[in-house]
Protein backbone atom coordinates (compact mmCIF):
# COMPACT_ATOMS: atom_id res chain seq x y z
CA UNK A 1 0.00 0.00 0.00
CA UNK A 2 1.15 3.53 -0.62
CA UNK A 3 -0.38 6.95 -0.14
CA UNK A 4 -1.88 8.62 -3.17
CA UNK A 5 -2.58 12.33 -3.20
CA UNK A 6 -5.83 12.87 -5.11
CA UNK A 7 -7.58 15.92 -6.57
CA UNK A 8 -10.62 14.52 -8.36
CA UNK A 9 -12.46 17.69 -9.38
CA UNK A 10 -10.73 19.73 -12.09
CA UNK A 11 -12.37 21.57 -15.01
CA UNK A 12 -10.70 21.83 -18.40
CA UNK A 13 -11.22 23.81 -21.60
CA UNK A 14 -14.28 21.67 -22.30
CA UNK A 15 -16.15 23.41 -19.48
CA UNK A 16 -17.39 26.84 -20.59
CA UNK A 17 -16.30 28.24 -17.22
CA UNK A 18 -12.87 26.55 -17.42
CA UNK A 19 -9.98 28.82 -18.36
CA UNK A 20 -8.54 28.30 -21.85
CA UNK A 21 -5.16 27.52 -20.28
CA UNK A 22 -6.74 24.35 -18.83
CA UNK A 23 -5.62 22.00 -21.59
CA UNK A 24 -5.04 18.36 -20.61
CA UNK A 25 -1.32 18.95 -21.10
CA UNK A 26 -1.14 21.96 -18.78
CA UNK A 27 -3.33 20.27 -16.17
CA UNK A 28 -1.07 17.21 -16.00
CA UNK A 29 2.09 19.37 -15.84
CA UNK A 30 0.63 21.36 -12.95
CA UNK A 31 -0.60 18.21 -11.18
CA UNK A 32 2.91 16.77 -11.40
CA UNK A 33 4.42 20.03 -10.12
CA UNK A 34 2.17 20.13 -7.05
CA UNK A 35 2.76 16.47 -6.18
CA UNK A 36 -0.59 14.90 -7.06
CA UNK A 37 -0.73 11.18 -7.90
CA UNK A 38 -4.36 10.81 -9.01
CA UNK A 39 -6.53 13.43 -10.69
CA UNK A 40 -9.74 13.56 -12.64
CA UNK A 41 -10.92 15.96 -15.31
CA UNK A 42 -14.57 16.58 -14.48
CA UNK A 43 -16.17 18.78 -17.11
CA UNK A 44 -19.85 19.63 -17.11
CA UNK A 45 -21.74 16.72 -18.69
CA UNK A 46 -18.67 15.72 -20.78
CA UNK A 47 -15.72 13.32 -20.46
CA UNK A 48 -13.74 13.75 -23.67
CA UNK A 49 -10.77 15.75 -22.36
CA UNK A 50 -10.15 13.11 -19.70
CA UNK A 51 -9.18 10.75 -22.53
CA UNK A 52 -6.25 12.99 -23.55
CA UNK A 53 -5.30 13.76 -19.94
CA UNK A 54 -5.18 10.00 -19.29
CA UNK A 55 -2.80 9.47 -22.21
CA UNK A 56 -0.49 12.28 -21.08
CA UNK A 57 -0.70 11.18 -17.43
CA UNK A 58 0.50 7.68 -18.32
CA UNK A 59 3.80 9.12 -19.57
CA UNK A 60 4.55 11.03 -16.37
CA UNK A 61 3.11 8.63 -13.79
CA UNK A 62 -0.12 10.41 -12.96
CA UNK A 63 -3.31 8.39 -12.88
CA UNK A 64 -6.28 10.10 -14.50
CA UNK A 65 -9.73 8.76 -13.67
CA UNK A 66 -12.26 9.26 -16.47
CA UNK A 67 -14.65 11.73 -14.91
CA UNK A 68 -17.58 14.05 -15.37
CA UNK A 69 -19.50 16.59 -13.32
CA UNK A 70 -23.02 15.75 -14.42
CA UNK A 71 -25.91 18.14 -13.84
CA UNK A 72 -29.11 16.26 -13.08
CA UNK A 73 -32.73 17.30 -13.65
CA UNK A 74 -32.86 18.69 -10.10
CA UNK A 75 -29.88 20.94 -11.01
CA UNK A 76 -27.58 18.96 -8.75
CA UNK A 77 -23.90 18.64 -9.65
CA UNK A 78 -22.76 15.04 -9.34
CA UNK A 79 -19.18 13.84 -9.81
CA UNK A 80 -18.87 10.52 -11.63
CA UNK A 81 -15.69 8.47 -12.14
CA UNK A 82 -14.97 5.39 -14.25
CA UNK A 83 -11.94 3.14 -14.82
CA UNK A 84 -12.30 2.96 -18.58
CA UNK A 85 -12.94 5.56 -21.23
CA UNK A 86 -15.55 3.28 -22.82
CA UNK A 87 -17.70 3.38 -19.67
CA UNK A 88 -17.21 7.12 -19.27
CA UNK A 89 -18.15 7.69 -22.90
CA UNK A 90 -21.24 5.51 -22.50
CA UNK A 91 -22.24 7.71 -19.55
CA UNK A 92 -21.60 10.84 -21.63
CA UNK A 93 -23.79 9.48 -24.43
CA UNK A 94 -26.58 8.79 -21.96
CA UNK A 95 -26.31 12.27 -20.42
CA UNK A 96 -25.91 14.08 -23.75
CA UNK A 97 -29.07 12.50 -25.15
CA UNK A 98 -30.94 13.96 -22.17
CA UNK A 99 -29.36 17.41 -22.37
CA UNK A 100 -31.61 20.14 -23.84
CA UNK A 101 -30.59 21.05 -27.39
CA UNK A 102 -29.70 24.66 -26.55
CA UNK A 103 -26.67 26.24 -28.21
CA UNK A 104 -23.82 27.68 -26.16
CA UNK A 105 -23.30 31.45 -26.30
CA UNK A 106 -19.51 31.32 -26.31
CA UNK A 107 -19.16 35.10 -25.89
CA UNK A 108 -21.11 34.96 -22.67
CA UNK A 109 -20.30 31.54 -21.18
CA UNK A 110 -16.96 30.79 -22.87
CA UNK A 111 -15.86 28.21 -25.43
CA UNK A 112 -16.20 24.47 -24.84
CA UNK A 113 -13.16 22.90 -26.46
CA UNK A 114 -11.78 19.38 -26.78
CA UNK A 115 -7.97 19.63 -26.81
CA UNK A 116 -5.51 16.78 -27.48
CA UNK A 117 -2.03 15.85 -26.18
CA UNK A 118 -0.38 18.32 -28.57
CA UNK A 119 -2.55 21.25 -27.37
CA UNK A 120 -4.41 21.07 -30.71
CA UNK A 121 -8.12 21.79 -30.87
CA UNK A 122 -10.01 18.63 -31.79
CA UNK A 123 -13.47 20.17 -31.79
CA UNK A 124 -15.77 22.77 -30.26
CA UNK A 125 -18.83 21.49 -28.44
CA UNK A 126 -21.70 23.75 -29.47
CA UNK A 127 -24.45 22.56 -27.16
CA UNK A 128 -24.60 24.49 -23.88
CA UNK A 129 -23.07 22.21 -21.25
CA UNK A 130 -24.05 24.37 -18.28
CA UNK A 131 -27.47 22.78 -18.32
CA UNK A 132 -29.41 19.97 -16.69
CA UNK A 133 -29.72 16.56 -18.28
CA UNK A 134 -33.25 15.27 -17.82
CA UNK A 135 -32.20 12.42 -15.55
CA UNK A 136 -32.93 12.29 -11.82
CA UNK A 137 -30.15 12.17 -9.23
CA UNK A 138 -31.49 8.72 -8.29
CA UNK A 139 -31.24 7.33 -11.83
CA UNK A 140 -27.86 8.97 -12.55
CA UNK A 141 -26.36 7.58 -9.33
CA UNK A 142 -27.81 4.13 -10.07
CA UNK A 143 -26.29 4.15 -13.58
CA UNK A 144 -22.84 5.11 -12.25
CA UNK A 145 -22.91 2.47 -9.50
CA UNK A 146 -24.25 -0.24 -11.83
CA UNK A 147 -21.27 0.39 -14.12
CA UNK A 148 -18.61 0.13 -11.42
CA UNK A 149 -18.16 3.87 -11.08
CA UNK A 150 -17.88 6.26 -8.15
CA UNK A 151 -20.59 8.85 -7.43
CA UNK A 152 -19.94 11.94 -5.31
CA UNK A 153 -22.34 14.91 -5.06
CA UNK A 154 -20.33 18.13 -5.58
CA UNK A 155 -19.79 21.03 -3.16
CA UNK A 156 -22.66 20.21 -0.83
CA UNK A 157 -22.01 23.43 1.10
CA UNK A 158 -22.60 25.60 -1.98
CA UNK A 159 -25.84 27.67 -2.18
CA UNK A 160 -26.32 26.61 -5.81
CA UNK A 161 -26.20 23.32 -7.75
CA UNK A 162 -25.65 21.29 -4.58
CA UNK A 163 -27.75 18.35 -3.45
CA UNK A 164 -28.63 20.22 -0.25
CA UNK A 165 -29.55 23.51 -1.97
CA UNK A 166 -31.76 21.64 -4.44
CA UNK A 167 -33.25 18.87 -2.31
CA UNK A 168 -33.14 20.43 1.15
CA UNK A 169 -31.48 17.36 2.63
CA UNK A 170 -29.65 14.22 1.48
CA UNK A 171 -31.93 11.18 1.39
CA UNK A 172 -30.61 8.00 3.02
CA UNK A 173 -31.22 5.68 0.08
CA UNK A 174 -28.80 7.21 -2.44
CA UNK A 175 -25.81 4.85 -2.97
CA UNK A 176 -23.20 7.64 -3.10
CA UNK A 177 -19.55 7.03 -2.18
CA UNK A 178 -18.74 10.36 -0.53
CA UNK A 179 -19.79 14.00 -0.30
CA UNK A 180 -17.60 16.79 -1.62
CA UNK A 181 -17.44 19.83 0.63
CA UNK A 182 -15.53 23.07 0.00
CA UNK A 183 -15.22 24.19 3.58
CA UNK A 184 -14.83 21.23 5.94
CA UNK A 185 -15.68 23.51 8.88
CA UNK A 186 -19.28 23.56 7.61
CA UNK A 187 -19.58 19.80 8.18
CA UNK A 188 -21.11 20.05 11.68
CA UNK A 189 -23.69 22.54 10.44
CA UNK A 190 -24.71 20.27 7.54
CA UNK A 191 -24.79 16.93 9.38
CA UNK A 192 -28.46 17.25 10.43
CA UNK A 193 -29.33 17.48 6.71
CA UNK A 194 -27.57 14.21 5.89
CA UNK A 195 -29.85 11.30 6.69
CA UNK A 196 -27.13 8.64 6.47
CA UNK A 197 -24.41 9.64 8.91
CA UNK A 198 -21.50 7.46 7.79
CA UNK A 199 -20.89 8.97 4.34
CA UNK A 200 -17.29 10.25 4.16
CA UNK A 201 -16.48 13.85 3.26
CA UNK A 202 -13.87 14.77 0.64
CA UNK A 203 -12.30 18.08 -0.39
CA UNK A 204 -11.21 18.65 -4.01
CA UNK A 205 -10.07 21.85 -5.70
CA UNK A 206 -12.91 22.32 -8.27
CA UNK A 207 -10.12 24.11 -10.16
CA UNK A 208 -11.08 26.31 -13.11
CA UNK A 209 -7.57 27.86 -13.24
CA UNK A 210 -4.17 26.17 -13.23
CA UNK A 211 -3.04 27.76 -9.98
CA UNK A 212 -5.94 26.14 -8.09
CA UNK A 213 -5.07 22.53 -8.97
CA UNK A 214 -4.33 20.50 -5.86
CA UNK A 215 -5.23 23.32 -3.45
CA UNK A 216 -7.78 20.97 -1.92
CA UNK A 217 -7.00 17.26 -2.04
CA UNK A 218 -7.31 13.99 -0.13
CA UNK A 219 -4.75 11.29 0.63
CA UNK A 220 -5.80 7.68 0.17
CA UNK A 221 -3.91 4.47 0.95
CA UNK A 222 -4.20 2.21 -2.06
CA UNK A 223 -2.49 -0.70 -3.80
CA UNK A 224 -3.62 0.60 -7.17
CA UNK A 225 -5.71 3.68 -7.96
CA UNK A 226 -8.77 1.97 -9.44
CA UNK A 227 -12.39 2.96 -8.86
CA UNK A 228 -12.98 -0.18 -6.81
CA UNK A 229 -10.03 0.48 -4.50
CA UNK A 230 -10.77 4.19 -4.22
CA UNK A 231 -14.41 3.47 -3.33
CA UNK A 232 -13.22 1.06 -0.67
CA UNK A 233 -10.62 3.51 0.71
CA UNK A 234 -13.30 6.22 0.85
CA UNK A 235 -15.46 3.98 3.02
CA UNK A 236 -12.59 3.78 5.51
CA UNK A 237 -12.00 7.54 5.61
CA UNK A 238 -14.58 8.11 8.35
Amino acid sequence: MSTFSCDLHIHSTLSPCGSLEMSPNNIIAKAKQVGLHVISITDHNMVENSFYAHEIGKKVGITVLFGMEAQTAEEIHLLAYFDTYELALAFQEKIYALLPDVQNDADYFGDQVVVNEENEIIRFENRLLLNSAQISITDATAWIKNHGGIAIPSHIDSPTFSIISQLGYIPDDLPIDALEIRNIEKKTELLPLIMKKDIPFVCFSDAHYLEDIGKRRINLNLEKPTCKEIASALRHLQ
Partner: protein
Amino acid sequence: MKLSDIVKEIGCEILTGTVNLDKEIKNGYVSDLLSDVIGNIKENSIWITIQRHINILGVAKLKDVIAILIPRSLQIEENIIEKAREEKIAILRDPRSAFELSGIIYNLLQKG
Protein backbone atom coordinates in the same frame (compact mmCIF):
# COMPACT_ATOMS: atom_id res chain seq x y z
CA MET B 1 -60.15 28.98 1.41
CA LYS B 2 -60.70 25.22 1.36
CA LEU B 3 -58.48 23.15 -0.92
CA SER B 4 -61.62 21.63 -2.48
CA ASP B 5 -62.80 25.13 -3.45
CA ILE B 6 -59.44 25.99 -5.01
CA VAL B 7 -59.47 22.74 -6.97
CA LYS B 8 -63.00 23.49 -8.18
CA GLU B 9 -62.11 27.05 -9.19
CA ILE B 10 -58.99 26.17 -11.16
CA GLY B 11 -60.22 22.80 -12.43
CA CYS B 12 -56.95 20.94 -11.89
CA GLU B 13 -56.30 17.22 -11.66
CA ILE B 14 -56.21 15.57 -8.18
CA LEU B 15 -53.69 12.73 -7.89
CA THR B 16 -54.20 11.82 -4.23
CA GLY B 17 -57.99 11.29 -3.98
CA THR B 18 -59.67 13.03 -1.08
CA VAL B 19 -56.46 13.79 0.83
CA ASN B 20 -56.64 17.25 2.50
CA LEU B 21 -59.52 18.47 0.30
CA ASP B 22 -61.34 19.74 3.40
CA LYS B 23 -58.25 21.60 4.71
CA GLU B 24 -58.03 25.36 4.77
CA ILE B 25 -55.32 26.93 2.53
CA LYS B 26 -53.93 30.13 4.02
CA ASN B 27 -50.82 30.76 1.92
CA GLY B 28 -49.04 29.89 -1.29
CA TYR B 29 -45.42 29.54 -2.37
CA VAL B 30 -43.62 28.94 -5.66
CA SER B 31 -40.08 27.51 -5.62
CA ASP B 32 -38.14 24.53 -6.90
CA LEU B 33 -35.20 24.79 -4.50
CA LEU B 34 -36.11 22.73 -1.49
CA SER B 35 -33.66 24.56 0.77
CA ASP B 36 -35.50 27.77 -0.16
CA VAL B 37 -38.87 26.17 0.53
CA ILE B 38 -37.70 24.93 3.94
CA GLY B 39 -36.52 28.44 4.75
CA ASN B 40 -39.46 30.44 3.51
CA ILE B 41 -42.77 28.63 2.98
CA LYS B 42 -45.50 29.45 5.51
CA GLU B 43 -47.65 26.76 7.07
CA ASN B 44 -50.98 25.70 5.53
CA SER B 45 -49.68 26.49 2.07
CA ILE B 46 -50.32 25.30 -1.42
CA TRP B 47 -46.87 24.89 -2.99
CA ILE B 48 -46.31 25.11 -6.75
CA THR B 49 -43.17 23.35 -7.96
CA ILE B 50 -41.69 21.44 -10.88
CA GLN B 51 -39.34 19.66 -8.45
CA ARG B 52 -40.40 16.02 -8.39
CA HIS B 53 -37.76 14.32 -6.28
CA ILE B 54 -39.34 12.38 -3.42
CA ASN B 55 -37.76 14.84 -0.97
CA ILE B 56 -40.67 17.20 -1.79
CA LEU B 57 -42.72 15.04 0.60
CA GLY B 58 -40.17 15.35 3.40
CA VAL B 59 -40.13 19.11 2.98
CA ALA B 60 -43.93 19.28 2.77
CA LYS B 61 -44.23 17.22 5.97
CA LEU B 62 -41.67 19.39 7.76
CA LYS B 63 -43.43 22.62 6.80
CA ASP B 64 -47.09 21.48 7.12
CA VAL B 65 -47.78 21.93 3.44
CA ILE B 66 -51.35 20.98 2.52
CA ALA B 67 -51.00 20.56 -1.23
CA ILE B 68 -48.28 20.40 -3.88
CA LEU B 69 -49.34 21.61 -7.34
CA ILE B 70 -47.32 20.37 -10.30
CA PRO B 71 -47.54 22.70 -13.32
CA ARG B 72 -47.25 21.98 -17.06
CA SER B 73 -48.79 18.50 -16.60
CA LEU B 74 -45.33 17.15 -15.73
CA GLN B 75 -45.02 13.46 -14.95
CA ILE B 76 -44.61 12.37 -11.35
CA GLU B 77 -43.63 8.89 -10.23
CA GLU B 78 -46.40 6.64 -8.93
CA ASN B 79 -44.43 5.77 -5.75
CA ILE B 80 -44.30 9.47 -4.82
CA ILE B 81 -48.07 9.78 -5.22
CA GLU B 82 -48.63 6.67 -3.09
CA LYS B 83 -46.30 7.97 -0.39
CA ALA B 84 -48.10 11.34 -0.49
CA ARG B 85 -51.42 9.58 0.16
CA GLU B 86 -49.87 7.83 3.17
CA GLU B 87 -48.31 11.04 4.47
CA LYS B 88 -51.53 13.00 3.90
CA ILE B 89 -50.16 15.52 1.44
CA ALA B 90 -52.34 16.37 -1.55
CA ILE B 91 -50.75 16.33 -5.00
CA LEU B 92 -52.45 18.26 -7.79
CA ARG B 93 -51.51 18.78 -11.41
CA ASP B 94 -52.44 21.26 -14.12
CA PRO B 95 -51.40 21.98 -17.73
CA ARG B 96 -50.74 25.68 -17.06
CA SER B 97 -47.38 27.17 -16.04
CA ALA B 98 -46.35 28.00 -12.46
CA PHE B 99 -46.68 31.69 -13.38
CA GLU B 100 -50.29 31.38 -14.52
CA LEU B 101 -51.30 29.10 -11.65
CA SER B 102 -49.76 31.29 -8.97
CA GLY B 103 -51.54 34.35 -10.41
CA ILE B 104 -54.89 32.60 -10.35
CA ILE B 105 -54.45 31.14 -6.87
CA TYR B 106 -53.08 34.39 -5.47
CA ASN B 107 -56.26 36.18 -6.56
CA LEU B 108 -58.46 33.44 -5.10
CA LEU B 109 -56.70 33.66 -1.74
CA GLN B 110 -56.93 37.46 -1.73
CA LYS B 111 -60.72 37.20 -2.15
CA GLY B 112 -60.72 34.66 0.69
